[in-house]
């Protein structure tokens, strides 16, 4: 049996991508990018200190059960206490974590995973196949786990040996390792159930858990990963208010913060004590999504009118102060090698928008938006409305409550704001959102041809072929879909200068939410 080539981003594509990023970064004069990162990586890491992180993305109702994770803080403490099965490397490839290595056969339905040896839980138990199987099963069958969908293709899990697991898929998927890299898919010992006393293989063990206030973990001192986990302890403070968070960083009350406000990041940079790390074009995808089966948006002309009628550049410049990349209406990030930059037609063109809109019979348009969808949503919407005005299109804005936005508006309102987080693989990114049958097909866009195409690409192991297939898929979405993904935000982390070893990561901010184990104090 032969090991599968790392399917997604080939090295070449990656470097090109990085160069782009570097250029962009240089222009913005930020300390970031691999250069910045590597340069910093060179001065030797040393142990010690408490990393105080001020973060948004959690609340008083947070739980340690990784099946309830939804937001940054959860992911962060998740990766401190537990380990995933697969880790996404700096270059975006899937590399082994607790599953050390894997292999599959053509068709990508039969998989064999080797469980890493010599890893012990905080409780002292040694990791084996049963723990992996138990942990996987937490997301299968009758479960509340959001990862259920990711693993739905798994037909059967077998223990091949004390340190080997076999998995059979109902339908082939070359990206299975990427699915297993999902932040919900963490590992607990076999039979574990008391979530108030989490037992993981992570670098840090839980000390204090006060959701909505702070989470403190302490270094176990016996972490299995080499050159990781430098801090004695980690303290996450919940600071939901962005202004407060920024102040806390500048005035040195915390060492690291996430989600800086693009509007003020320029000022933060002026502070001598602070570095800003920007993950270019790999952040959240910001979109307005229309139901293709709603009378107002039934005609593709309307949808195209909206796509031409939105001044993406203006939004990126004013709302995100340039800390975002223009989106291509699919959800593929520009940092992704499979990203197909927009063909010119999708740039702002009021006249064309106007004519298309008339052609469509000028249906009434109402956009429901809330700051609860994502920060900058309302401002973007206002600018959207303005740019449509220039095309003589009248868009009615309805501000809805941030509270319960995802229950009451998203997937229900015919036209509303939505953000999509990055997915580890293009396949997930496309299939979870645009599959005719996907639960989260929030544009109600259904195209059998597209479905077929994606399924085919899923088992296609030749990168080149795969790339062209995904390109076609993206064009389908961009030209007929109901999603107006106008921008992909940059992740903006702030660090005290003394924090070293934090490099932008293609997946999540704060070094893929693993800053706790990756970074160190100079």
């Amino acid at each position, binding site marked *: 049996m032969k090991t599968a080539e790392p399917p997604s981003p080939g090295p070449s594509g990656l470097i090109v991508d990085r160069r782009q990023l570097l250029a962009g970064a240089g222009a913005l004069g930020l300390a970031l990018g691999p250069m910045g990162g590597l340069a910093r990586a060179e001065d030797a890491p040393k142990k010690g200190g408490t990393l105080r992180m001020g973060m948004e993305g959690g609340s008083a109702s947070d739980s340690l059960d990784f099946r309830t994770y939804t937001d940054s803080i959860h992911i962060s403490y998740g990766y401190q206490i537990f380990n995933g099965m697969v880790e996404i490397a700096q270059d975006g490839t899937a590399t082994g974590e607790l599953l050390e290595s894997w292999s599959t056969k053509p068709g990508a339905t039969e998989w064999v995973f080797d469980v890493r040896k010599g890893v012990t839980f905080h409780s002292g138990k040694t990791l084996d196949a049963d723990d992996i199987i138990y942990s996987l099963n937490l997301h299968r069958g009758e479960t509340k786990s959001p990862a259920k969908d990711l693993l739905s293709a798994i037909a059967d899990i077998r223990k091949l040996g004390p340190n080997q697991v076999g998995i059979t898929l109902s339908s082939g998927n070359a990206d299975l390792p990427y699915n297993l890299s999902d932040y919900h898919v963490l590992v607990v010992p076999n039979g574990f159930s008391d979530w108030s006393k989490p037992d993981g293989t992570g670098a840090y063990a839980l000390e204090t858990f006060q959701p909505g206030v702070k989470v403190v973990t302490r270094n176990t001192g016996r972490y299995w990963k080499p050159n990781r986990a430098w801090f004695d302890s980690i303290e996450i403070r919940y600071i939901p208010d962005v202004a407060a968070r920024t*102040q806390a960083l500048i005035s040195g009350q915390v060492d690291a913060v996430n989600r800086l406000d693009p509007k003020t990041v320029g000022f933060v940079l002026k502070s001598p004590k602070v570095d800003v790390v920007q993950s270019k074009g790999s952040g959240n995808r910001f979109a307005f999504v229309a139901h293709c089966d709603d009378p107002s948006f039934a005609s593709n002309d309307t949808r195209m009118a909206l796509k031409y009628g939105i001044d993406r550049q203006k939004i990126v410049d004013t709302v995100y102060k340039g800390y975002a990349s223009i989106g291509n209406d699919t959800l593929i990030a520009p940092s992704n090698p499979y990203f197909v930059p927009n063909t010119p037609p999708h740039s702002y063109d009021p006249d064309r928008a106007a004519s298309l809109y008339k052609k469509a019979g000028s249906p009434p348009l109402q956009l429901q938006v809330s700051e609860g969808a994502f920060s900058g949503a309302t401002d973007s919407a206002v600018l959207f*409305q303005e740019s449509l005005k220039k095309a003589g299109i009248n868009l009615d804005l309805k501000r809805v*409550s941030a509270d319960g936005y995802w229950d009451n508006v998203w997937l229900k309102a015919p036209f509303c704001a939505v953000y999509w987080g990055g997915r580890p693989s293009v396949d997930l990114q496309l299939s979870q959102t645009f599959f005719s049958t996907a639960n989260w097909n929030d544009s109600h866009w259904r195209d059998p041809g597209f479905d077929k195409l994606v399924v085919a690409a899923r088992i296609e192991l030749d990168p080149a072929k795969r790339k062209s297939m995904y390109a076609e898929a993206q064009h389908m979405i961009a030209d007929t879909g109901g999603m107006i993904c106008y921008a992909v935000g940059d992740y903006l982390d702030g660090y005290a200068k003394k924090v070293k070893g934090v490099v932008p990561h293609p997946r999540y901010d704060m070094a893929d939410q693993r800053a706790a184990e990756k970074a160190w104090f100079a």
Partner: protein
Amino acid sequence: MTIFGHKAPLTAVVGLAIILLNLLVALAGPYLAPYGETQVVGGGWDPASAAAWFGTDQIGRDMFTRLVYGARMTIGIAFVTTILSFAIGITLGLVAAVAGRWVDALISRAVDVVLSIPLLIWALMILNVLGQSLFSLVFTIGCLDSTRVFRLARALGLNLVSLDFVEVARMRGEGLWWVISREILPNAAAPLMSEFGLRFCFNFLFIAALSFLGLGVPLPYADWGGMVKDNVGGISFGLPAALYPAAAIALLTVGINLVVDWFLSIDARPSGAQAEM
């Protein structure tokens, strides 16, 4: 010096001037504003310039224009909500005072229930149930605020009810409504009017607080509270944008209250502290 008779002191004159100015701006808004309410004229938080006197807001709309339109929206909403809250509060309050112990106890307890939970949280819940719109916003604030008015109205009522002319009316067999509307209300007018001024101000502060939870007036209209919220992020970096709407609110509040104080002191006897000795 005290204000005796209806002679307005300097403070009251200033107050009136401020109010008139605001009303003028609110009414003549579109003619005063150099740009459209939602028109984007520059980048976010551009500094003040000849083109934009107060600079621009977080997404590059002219701050001065927003302020002018904001006056209309803010004062408008605050006015309507206050009217509503007074309509409800006064009715309940006076009924409670006149109709006697049981009704009184009932309403008062109910009001206690409302008051004992943070207003913001009521607003949060109610607005979620009603869904967000100008109407529901006005309705919610109006109802919540009426509990405050209720307390005053009731207390005034209790005092007036004991006066002989009210007794006479009751002895005449006048209905509840007559006693309230003809005998009591006219005599409670002064304090209620002055209270009106206060609640008026608190209402647009409340709207500001709401915008902190992402609730507030519909987009893309300007309201001062919302504007403070939208631009407050810049404050920490010495960006003045949020100061303008905040100042506008403060100015109007002070103005109204100066007049209110004068209004009250007109029929209030000067206190013993004023005696010559």
